[in-house]
């Protein structure tokens, strides 16, 4: 029962990724070649909305969330190399096959076998990272 709010949020997220075509390989190529404002409009308005929403929630820090735990804004763990280098590796994949993780899940739901293969690759890539992470600069 406690999962229901998250599942509903996920449905809205997945539906939006599909209907906005952020889950489209075509839109991603168009974005990386600066041929349309569409994807940039999505990113900019999403960050602005998230910023306003998170600022509003700073007033509520310490109050109970729906689940009861006090509201806090989670912070990213420190690190110098992992963020740009990991981002670079991910970006190389994203620019080629045009799917980032949200769209992978959404397209799998839409029945795309190709996206299921990408998901299989992503799980293996995740395992590979787990196997070598202690040798990588953090």
């Amino acid at each position: 029962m406690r999962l229901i709010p998250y599942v509903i949020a996920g449905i809205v997220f997945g539906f939006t990724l599909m209907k906005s075509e952020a889950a489209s390989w075509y839109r991603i190529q168009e974005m990386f070649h600066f041929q349309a404002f569409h994807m940039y409009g999505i990113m900019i308005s999403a960050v602005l909305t998230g910023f306003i929403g998170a600022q509003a929630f700073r007033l509520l820090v310490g109050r109970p969330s729906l689940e009861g735990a006090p509201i806090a804004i989670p912070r990213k763990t420190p690190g110098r190399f992992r963020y740009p280098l990991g981002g670079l590796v991910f970006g190389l994949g994203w620019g080629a096959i045009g799917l980032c993780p949200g769209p992978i899940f959404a397209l799998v739901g839409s029945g795309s076998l190709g996206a299921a293969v990408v998901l299989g690759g992503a799980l293996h890539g995740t395992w590979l990272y787990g196997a070598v992470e202690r040798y990588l600069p953090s």
Partner: protein
Amino acid sequence: MLDAFVSPWPWYLAGPLIGSMVPLMLWIGSRSFGISQNLEHMVAITQPSMIGVHFFKYDWRASRWSLGFAGGTVLGGFLAGVVVPNPESVALTESARTMIEGWGFTQGIGLVPPEMFDLSLRNLLLLFAGGVLVGFGTRYASGCTSGHAITGLSTLQPQSLFAVLGIFGGGMLASHLLTPFLA
């Protein structure tokens, strides 16, 4: 009314909906909006407990909320792509259409090109390899477009800015130097 669910959505509807996930997740359970950590949980679930990589030996049950969110994303993809699919192809700008046709890709209905996503041996290898980069990279950077570009930037976390620069740089390299030869 139904038409609004069938046709593609403009950026000014989609962006605020996606961005609202940040305060929504804070409100539900003080969570950080993101999806790629589920890749880690899925490996942790399937890895046999006695053997395997230490990195995945943690209690994934504490992250059931995140798996629930990913399950919802799959369901949302089903609703949008199967129940109310857009019957038309993605309305690219003329310059983008000319570009991808020049690369040898075509556009049918659907969000991905058949030249890359129809299952052939070559495409299986290509899609799997691309997925490996996405999985490895998002775990190394501990986040993807959702967790870094949206949650991280909107909560002003400097690490996320570096991640986004890496992501965009990698995407530019691949899209300009690699993808044109993948049809």
